[in-house]
């Protein structure tokens, strides 16, 4: 187990360096003068020179890259250009609001999708299944912006069931702000998941052992819930685990629209303010967390599926 972990981390180093190189090229090399982009066209030469000095842009490119690698290792990305806050603090403060939306919404989505997919797969070929599949495809095709804007308008603005946007750091107060974005999150992802799980369940029902179970006289519910479901758990759990690294991002658009000050909100805010140091740090950190997440995923996957050995 330990040697597997060490090997995976060493294997990830070229990827981490690659990510650093791509981000550096995008922000410091091809993007034109970052200082000019941040202060705008009407800045004085003195202002531009100050910014260059603060972010080390007056140094040669290879020195800038070394400095950037140092920032990654020490997790110190300097200060935001727009708000003057320390970027590392901004990121640490953003993780908790992001997680308080993402984790409950993700768990609810998974639970609902599994239940619904069992329902449609059990009644495969019947009208429940057909209606279910049609609803899934329609749900997948509605643009995410449509869900968010119409959901917010109808449920929060017109019917006044939920607050329109906002966030409360106290545990109880937060709840009322998070319900609507969580509902929209579930609506956004349930179509994909149900369809995926349904396919996995149906593939399993065509296996030989299912025919054997039926041939020896087992009832259909017993075949389905005992034999089929048990064997489908592997693809289901795989899908769930593979989605976990993506949670680190929260949901950019949901956070922005509902004023939840998470990582997605900070990123979009930085984009609107041309706050390149924040955007760069955010891209770097989320990518690194994603890489670590995939390593954790591999290990969890190996634990779930006995056929995979941690060699």
């Amino acid at each position, binding site marked *: 187990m330990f040697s597997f972990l060490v090997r995976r981390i060493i294997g990830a180093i070229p990827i981490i360096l690659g990510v650093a190189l*791509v981000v550096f090229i*995008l*922000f410091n090399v091809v993007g*034109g003068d970052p200082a000019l982009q941040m202060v705008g066209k009407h800045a004085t030469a003195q202002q531009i020179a100050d910014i260059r000095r603060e972010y080390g842009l007056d140094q040669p490119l290879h020195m800038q890259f070394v400095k950037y690698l140092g920032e990654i290792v020490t997790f110190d990305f300097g200060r935001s250009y727009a708000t003057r806050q320390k970027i590392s603090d901004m990121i640490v403060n953003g993780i908790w609001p992001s997680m308080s939306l993402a984790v409950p919404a993700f768990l609810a989505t998974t639970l609902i999708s599994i239940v619904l997919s069992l329902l449609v797969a059990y009644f495969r070929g019947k009208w429940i299944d057909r209606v279910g599949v049609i609803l899934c495809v329609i749900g*997948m095709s509605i*643009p995410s*912006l449509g869900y968010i804007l119409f959901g917010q308008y109808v449920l929060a603005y017109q019917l006044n069931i939920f607050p329109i946007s906002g966030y409360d750091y106290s545990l109880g107060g937060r709840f009322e702000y998070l319900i609507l974005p969580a509902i929209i999150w579930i609506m956004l992802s349930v179509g994909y998941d149900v369809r995926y799980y349904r396919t996995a369940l149906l593939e399993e029902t065509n296996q030989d052992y299912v025919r054997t179970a039926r041939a020896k006289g087992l009832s259909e519910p017993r075949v389905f819930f005992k034999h089929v479901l048990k064997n489908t758990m592997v693809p289901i759990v795989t899908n769930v685990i593979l989605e976990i690294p993506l949670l680190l991002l929260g949901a950019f658009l949901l956070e922005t629209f509902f004023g939840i000050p998470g990582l997605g909100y900070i*990123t979009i805010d930085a984009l609107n303010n041309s706050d390149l140091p924040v955007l760069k740090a955010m891209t770097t950190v989320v990518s690194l967390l994603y890489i670590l997440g995939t390593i954790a995923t591999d290990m969890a996957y190996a634990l779930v599926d006995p056929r995979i050995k941690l060699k």
Partner: protein
Amino acid sequence: MSTATSTAAELALDSQGTPKGRSLWNHAWTRLKKDKYAIICALIIIVYFLIAFLAFIGAIASPWDKVVGPSYAPPSTESMEMWFGADIFGRSVFYKVIHGTRVAISVGFVVALVSVPIGVFLGAVAGYFGGVIDEIIVWFYSTLSSIPNLLLLLAIAKAVGKGMGAIYISLIITSWIGIARVIRGEFIKHKQRDYVTAADSLGASHFSKIFKHILPNVSHFIILNISLQFMSAIKAEVILSFLGVGVSGPSWGNMIDEAKLELARGVWWQLSAATGAMFFIVLAFNILGDALRDALDPKIK
């Protein structure tokens, strides 16, 4: 498709008396023709293409920024221009949707047309040759796919600058990865099969083995991926334009961006028109993609 007819077709003899088999494409086409939903979806996509083309050459909805009525005039059936109402400047929302269609279709078309060949070529080369070439290509796409897609798109679009070019470049850079992965996996499987060894022993070159022998056997993955790429490019364009790093002028994303503040004033038509236009083409691609996948699956005959 019943087993009886397909067996009969396979046993049919051609003029030289050798058994005439039916290709995967033959089977797929026969099956697709019978799927009336797939045909309807294909027609919907063709209509979108036609609208985009006519708007591109200026035959319809030109000019889109002409003032046709009062600010925020609600939809009415009086004239075609007013079908979807007017925006804040009194411009026809219907015309804007048509030009948004032009933008969306051209983004989907260009991105799929450029990124799929790149992905197929790199995936084929990596899978076929293996070794150092494989490691470099895999490293390259693993790196790009470790950066969350939206962040990478935003960073590229920001670096390249605003406009259509930025959208094309950022989507092409991120879109070839999926197909490259699939094609690489297939090439690794296929390169050891007997038919490739046979071609090798007859003195076939690497070029001929890759493109003449193996590629036709994995081509159904490419067709499926094109429809997938097209759909994701359209979705991504809307998000990027909405976030303000995309095109200027009418696009579904820009319309949704304008409309997000109009809703509170009861102006629902611009948002509905843009999301509706996007919904139908994505729905059509989803259903057609499923039908294609079923039709091209050699296991279901």
